[in-house]
Each structure stands twice: as C-alpha cells, then as structure tokens.
C-alpha cells in the first residue's frame, strides 16, 4: 500500500455557534487528484484551513510521510509550517499583497537573498519561470493590483508551486476564471499528478470534477458523508444526492411564456461610455431574461456599471420604460428607475462583511421602511429579512451574525437578497453563481424564472455558458466593449455554444488588424 501524501484523522473545528467540522477524515494519495465536495457552508474551506495551519483544529490529527517514509503526526502551527512541510494552497478568496508586484507575491514566502539582501533580479527570474510553467503570460514586475481577479488567482497558484510542493490544496480555483484558464490550470494539475503530487480539488462544477479527479470526499454539515472513495464508483446523481442529503431531481427548463409587453423596460441604442464602449445597442423587455455573454475583460461589467450610473454614457441613448434617461448613481437607478444591480465582486462591493445579515439585506429598503419621524421599525425589518433568508435558503445562525462569518456561497445569497428585497423592475445580475452549490444554483434558477414570470426584466451577465444557455431567453455576446451579435436561445447546449463561439470568433477575426487579444481564448471556450 502506498503511503498517503497527507492523512487527516477525525479533524474537528468549532466557531462560536457553529460546529464547522465534526470528526472529518481524509486520505490523499500521491499521484492522485482528490475532489472535496459539499454544499455551501459544508466545511470545505474550513478543512483546507485546518490542514494548512490557518485554523488550529480542536481535535484530530494530521499525518504526513516522515523521514523514514512512514506516516508521522505533524503539528501545523501556522501557515509557514504547512508550507515548509510541502503543502501548497490556494484559498477560496484572493490573498494578495496589493502593493507588491506579481513576482514578489510569488516569492514572498521564500525571498531569495544574496549577500544579506533580497536578490530582486533572481526573484523576478524565478517568478517568471514559475509563471511560464503555468503557461501564464504575465510580466512578473507588473503591480499585482493591476491584474484581474482571475489573473491574481493564477499568481496564487504559481505561489503555491513556488516552493517544493507535494500536496496542493485548491479551494474553488475555477469558480471565477474562464474555461480557457481552467483548461490551462488542469493541464498543470494533470502534470503535477503525473509527477507524483497529490492534489485536493474543491469545486461546485461536477463536470470538471469527473473529468479530472479520481477520488472523492463529500462533506455535509461538517461531517464526511463519503470519505476518500474512488470517484468512478459513484454516479453524478449519486454524488449530488449525497451532498444534498436527499434526492435532487433533474432540472427542467420551463416553457416560458413570451414577454407580455413588447416595449422594452431597458433599452440602449448606440451607447458610448467613458469605460470605452462603442455603439452598444441592447434591450430587455419585462418578463425577459437577456444573457450577456463574453470573455473575461470583454466589458460586460463596465456596461452594467454604465447603466446604473457608475460610468458616464457619452453618446447614444438609454431608455428606461421608454423614457430617455440619464442615471447618475446607483441610488437614482434604484429609487427612481427601479433598476437593481448585483455586482460580481461580492467581497469588495456586494456585502458589508462587518455588518449583520439584517443590515446587509435591508439596506435597499430603508427608505420604504421608514415610518413617522424617519424611524425604522426593527420588527418589520426583521420580518422582511427573514422572508428572504427563507426564500433563498441562506444558512445563518441568526440575523445578527456578521456577513463576513458566512461561507462564500451564503454571502453571495445575501448580496442577492438585498436586491430582491428592493423588488426592482429591472435587475442586472453579474456572475451570480460564482461559488454557489448545485442545489442553491437550482433554486436560484427557479427564482430567476419566477421573477421574470412576475414581469421583471433581467439582464444576466455570466461567464458560465451552460448557465446562460439554461437561463436566458436571448443571448447577446460582447467582445472588446462592443456587441458582437445576438441570438435567440434555443436552450440546446451543443448548437447554442457552437453558435456563440463562432460569433465571438468572427467578431475577433474581423478585427484582426486591431490586435486580436483573447482570440485563442475564444477557441478554447468551445472545449
């Protein structure tokens, strides 16, 4: 029998009011990719933190191969100890030092020195080599603050690999990167596995899991319900049911009625913005879900920001319910025009991490909750919030809990609940399901359909093509700050995805002279 690269035995960990891990065990073998699955809040991230010295477990032990090759118990008192023990990790949230360069973020744990001082030249070279190994084309001396979240994640992976790594723990590494970048990541993962490393992989995307993992552990409510089993022994549905704890039927796309009114709720004609958009035309009718697809950096987020007044529209026209409008702030967008905007960056823009759930959810409705001399009834506020907590099945211990203490997926739901509470007539949703588990995604889809059926106009921005093809009625494709084209959604994944990729491709091809950025990525998406 091979000696495990890492073995965790009956790890327990409690936070005030939550038992996040309850005697969880896990065996990672060398040369294997181990999937760690579970719903939001199941304890996946907590387990990874317990294995890397971030949290000290309340009970249980961790074993690594000792000098004699036999498993020996180790005390990982802090992250540095874990790193020195050959455990590399990429946490779920981005952890970069924004004031530093890419190179320095990679080498920070082990800065090369010469003659008593840091050898910056060597640091850059080593970082560059590390990035090259990941096939990432980034100048190591770029300030990291200039990178996108996906690029930062790649840098973090480079950092995890920078030191001698036998065990690599990846917490939802593919949640917010493009398919092309995911493929690149998996190539590296596969290579590392072939070289004998052991990889732990957390994802809510089961397709990926089946394509690349060989072993699986499933957590539910802090307990392991399936422990270090061969993945091939379990079907997709079986795994889902294990995670959820009951049978979860398959999702059927409803037969949605055609939009009731033909007058668009939101309409852009030949819009130019300070963000750099040119001649963007787009419309969403009440009861309609319009998907806005594109590659990372195509300018979809910026378009959403321009609609709600965070960028200026310099030419063209924006009509809300037929009336030409100029929106200057999110406040106007919400309270005057009934437009809600769920941002993609929940940690920095979506939720107030240090505030209670109540305050997070109710922020958009205070003007309406006000009674008499400007006072808000705490009771009415709680009732309202309780309704949305129920509706979205947000896992909280109390409404007073700080949003920052929730698992990532639940934070995302809080950020969504805030906008649903405001009951807008037009809802713009940017990357809504990043890091959300399957069941919640389902209920989220159903919610979106229901909202549309109730007459809401929904503009959905997502990089998950499958999601887009499932949800949208119509899909507009954006490429480099312009609309490349628009298609009615047939809900047929294969044909639809082909068509959309072709659309991006032809748009990119027609501007080859403009320096075709991201063209290869366009091809990759089809994979």
């Amino acid at each position, binding site marked *: 029998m091979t000696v495990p690269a890492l073995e965790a035995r009956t790890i327990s960990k*409690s*936070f*005030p*009011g*939550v038992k996040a891990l309850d005697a969880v065990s896990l065996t990672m073998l060398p040369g294997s990719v181990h999937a760690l699955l579970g719903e939001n809040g199941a304890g996946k991230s907590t387990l990874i*933190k317990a294995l890397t010295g*971030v*949290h*000290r477990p*309340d009970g249980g032990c961790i074993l690594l191969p000792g000098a004699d090759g036999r498993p020996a118990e180790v005390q990982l*008192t*802090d992250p540095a100890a874990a790193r020195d023990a050959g455990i590399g990790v990429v946490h779920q*949230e981005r952890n970069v030092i924004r004031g530093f360069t890419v190179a320095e973020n990679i080498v920070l744990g082990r800065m090369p020195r010469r003659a008593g001082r840091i050898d910056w030249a060597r640091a850059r070279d080593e970082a560059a080599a590390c990035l090259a190994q990941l096939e990432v084309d980034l100048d190591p001396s770029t300030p990291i603050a200039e990178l996108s979240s996906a690029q930062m994640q790649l840098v973090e992976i480079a950092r995890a690999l920078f030191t001698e790594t036998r065990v690599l723990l990846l917490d939802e590494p593919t949640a917010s990167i493009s398919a092309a970048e995911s493929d690149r990541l998996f190539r590296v993962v596969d290579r590392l596995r072939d070289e004998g490393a052991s990889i732990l992989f957390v994802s809510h995307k089961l397709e990926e899991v089946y394509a690349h993992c060989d072993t699986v552990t499933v957590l539910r409510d802090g307990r392991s319900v399936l422990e270090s089993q061969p993945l091939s022994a379990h079907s997709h549905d079986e795994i889902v049911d294990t995670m959820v704890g009951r049978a979860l039927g398959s999702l059927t796309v409803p037969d949605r009625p055609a939009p009731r009114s033909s007058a668009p709720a939101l309409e852009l004609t030949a819009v130019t913005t300070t963000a750099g958009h040119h001649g963007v035309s787009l419309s969403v009718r009440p009861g309609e879900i319009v998907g806005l697809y594109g590659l990372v950096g195509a300018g979809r987020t910026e378009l959403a920001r321009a609609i709600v007044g*965070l960028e200026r529209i310099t030419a063209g026209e924006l009509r809300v319910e037929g009336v030409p409008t100029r929106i200057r*702030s*999110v*406040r106007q*967008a*919400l*309270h005057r025009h009934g437009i809600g*905007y769920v*941002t993609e960056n929940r*940690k*920095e*823009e*979506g*939720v*107030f*991490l*240090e*505030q209670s759930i109540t*305050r997070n959810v109710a*922020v*958009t409705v*205070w*003007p309406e*909750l*006000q009674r008499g001399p*400007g*006072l*808000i009834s*705490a009771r009415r506020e709680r009732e309202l919030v309780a309704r949305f907590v129920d509706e979205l099945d947000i896992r909280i*211990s*109390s409404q*007073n809990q*700080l949003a*920052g*203490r929730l698992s990532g997926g639940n934070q995302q739901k809080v950020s969504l609940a*805030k906008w649903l509470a*405001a009951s807008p007539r037009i809802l713009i949703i940017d990357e809504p399901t990043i890091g959300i588990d399957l069941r919640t995604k389902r209920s989220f889809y159903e919610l979106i359909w229901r909202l549309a059926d109730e007459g809401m106009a929904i503009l959905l921005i997502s990089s998950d093509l499958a999601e887009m093809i499932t949800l949208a009625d119509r899909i507009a494709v954006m490429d480099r700050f312009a609309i490349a084209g628009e298609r009615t959604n047939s809900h047929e994944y294969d044909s639809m995805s082909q068509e959309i990729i072709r659309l991006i491709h032809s748009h990119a091809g027609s501007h080859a002279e403009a320096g075709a950025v991201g063209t290869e990525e366009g091809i990759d998406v089809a994979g």
Partner: protein
Amino acid sequence: MSDRPAVVRWLATPRFVLIAIIVVLVAVLTAVKPSFLNGAFVLAPLITSITVFTVVGLAQMMVLSIGHMNIAVGQMAAFGAMASGISFDLFALPLAAGLLLGLVAGAAIGALTGWIIARTGVNSFIVTLAMSFALLGLVPTVYSALSTGSAFVVKPEGFDLLGRSSFSSVCLAGWCGPAAIPLMVVPVLVVMALVGLLYQRTRWGRELLLTGSNVTAAELSGIPTARRIVMAHTLSGTLAALAGILLATSIGSFTPSIGDEFMLQSFVGPILGGTLLAGGYVSVVGTFLGITLTLVIRKGLELFGVGIETLNVLLGVILLVALSADRVREIRLRRGRAPGSAPGRPSGSTPDRTPDAEEVPA
C-alpha cells in the same frame, strides 16, 4: 445556534467591562477618600467634565462611524465657541440665539470639511489635519482682532445657569435638587439620546454605518455616500461646537484655547467604548462610559494629590491594566474555541489595526 439571550450578549460587550471597572473604582475611592462624595466640589465638577467630554467623544464618534477621523475637533470647538462669544460680546444676542449661532458655525465648518473630503476623495485625516491648522491660525487672529485680552467675556442671561449651576438651584416647593448634578447634564442627555436614536433607528444612522463599513458597497447599494460623508462631518462639527460652548460656559469666558485638550480625549472615549476606528460600529453609551472611566481615574488621582509625574504614570498604567483585563476576559470566554481568522478587512481608511487575531496560545 439560537441567539444568545440579550443579557448574556450585553455582558460580553466592552460596555459591561467599563461599568464594572468604574463601579469598582468609585467604590474603592469612596472607601479610601470619603471626600469623593463631596457634591459641590468633587462630583459636580467631575460630572461637568464628563458631560463636556462625552459630547467631544460623540463628535469624534460621528466621523468614526463612517471610518473617518476628525483631527480638528478641538479647533472646530474653538471656532463654534468663538462664534457664540462674538454674538454675545459684539452683538449682545440672548443666550439661545448665541448658542444657535455657535452650533451653526460648527456645522458650517464641519460641512465644509466633509464637502472637501467627499469632493476630492482625500483622506479625512489629512483634510481635518489641514483644517485644524487653518483654524489654529484663524481663531486666535479673530480673538486678537475683536477682543481685548483675547477673550470674549460678556455673559448673557442664563449663561452661568447653564455652565456653573447644579440642580440645587432648581427648587420646587422648598425642595431643591442635589448639588452634585450640574444642570449641564440635561442638554447632554438629550444629545446622547438623539445620537443614539440616529444610529439605532433611523435610516441615516444605518447608512452612515454602512458607509463606514465599506464605502464602495454602500455606493453600490444605493446609499448616497457623498451626502452621508458631509452629514457625518457636519454633525461632528456641530457637536464639537456644542462641547466648546459648554466648556466656555463652565469655565466662564470664551478663549482661543478652548478645545486644546479635546483631540486625544475625543478618540479615547469612543475607542474604549468599543467604537471601531475602521468604521461601521459605534456605541453612544460606550463613549460615555469610556470618557467616565478616564475622568474618574483622573479625579481619584487628583484627590490623592499625586504629583504630576505620578499622575501621568498612573493614568497610563491604569488604562492599560483595565483594558488588558478586558482582553483576559475575552480570551477566557473563548478558551477551548480559539478565535478564527478575522473577517476581511474593512475598506475604509484604517489608520490603526491591531494585528489579526492569531491563534491564542493554549
């Protein structure tokens, strides 16, 4: 995972610790120095100081709630007091009108500060520091120009009643109130109640707190953050002016040195009371208790007649020991359940952060 009972939650707040420390201190002081209970000469001046500095603390708390700072609290107090002084001295206005004018002046200077911050996006520390310098230049110049002896000394009717009288001058049917409680507590209690109500129950108060928690998220949630920033600084200026005027009524005249001692104290109260420097959380009662604690310590040392060197050393040491006791209690509470990683950092200006709670050694 239900809510802990309110009482238990309250016992775990810094407020409870402060009350406990204050009660113990007062008990010890009374036992060792019975003169501590002297109404007119110990308690009344002590309470007067507490009321004035509570207002100062609240002025700072206003901007702390949005994650800002007001380095110019003292100078804004001086400015507001100056306006009141001028209105009594040069225009012979009655008390109420002069007070109002002073508060308006404070509000105006606060609003200007807030507007500059909101418009330029420059850190509040720098803007208020610059503002304090500018006022430090302006106020004495005005005093020199408009007064003899650099002070406004005209007292309208009711001036001494507000600043230097106690409930002993409030008599009903032959019964007079205690001499230990100055009349000044009345307006200050009202102010505390209003500020408490603002943060507890009104939309503006909550919007201030959310702006302090994360200004980007607040803007993206439809909160008019620029207006809230101006609002917080305006209220801060108003309260600072109020404190300056109250101080002037208690010492007897309006001088440019009013507010000199405000800046550090203004931070001590809120921070001891649990208000976060990073914004997003405030406590009115905590601010009051924090101020009370420091002033009771001072008064106690004063009664023992300790020299200035010992006074300072003891003040510092008692502060540290009292707060360390708080930490020990917290650690005990958590023993067995080591604290987790701190949540993500707030995005407001955070000039001070204690290091993240790393695991407490078992």
